[in-house]
């Protein structure tokens, strides 16, 4: 389980790297969406570890917040241009 958390942390770092590199705004939005999905996976793994006592509903809240955020940023790109 420690291995899984480490692998997910590495994946999150790679997504952050793409958010920083760009080049277009859309690339950053997509990478941020993937980063939120990675956070959802990380919280799921943390909830699967019984020693951490994570409340499972947190996963659902983060997933829905990520959906709303990505949709709003995509609408922003449509209105203002990439």
């Amino acid at each position, binding site marked *: 389980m420690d*291995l*899984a958390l480490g692998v997910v942390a590495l994946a999150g770092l790679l997504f952050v790297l793409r958010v920083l590199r760009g080049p277009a705004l859309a690339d950053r939005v*997509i990478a941020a969406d993937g980063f939120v999905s990675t956070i959802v996976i990380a919280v799921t*793994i943390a909830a699967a570890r019984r020693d951490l006592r994570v409340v499972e509903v947190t996963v659902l809240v983060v*997933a829905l917040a990520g959906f709303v955020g990505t949709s709003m940023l995509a609408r922003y790109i449509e209105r203002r241009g990439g």
Partner: protein
Amino acid sequence: MLDAIGTVLVVLGAGFALLAGIGVNRFPDTYSRMHAAAKSPTLGLVLAAAGACFRVRTVPAICIFVLVAIVQLLTSPVSTHIAARAVHLRMKVEMDGVDELASDELARDRPAGDDPV
């Protein structure tokens, strides 16, 4: 035994998250990166949620993990579709030097002056 199955599923899910991270950095254009960032974390989350179900084994937790998997399977294609639409309408994405989506093939079916945005 159930714990072992759960651990394997969770590690597989984490592996798919890592694959998505690698793909987002290695693929050459926006659409390919979108493909990497949308699909593999979804499968990774479904695997991780299944593994968490095998490890936690209480009814409320399993209900929430199933709900999380369903929510992700429903919302990930929608948000990626909205993002792809924005990129198609507002950006020029060249793959191997050509923009294959440059001509809007649905334009003739739209009334004149109807801005899709």
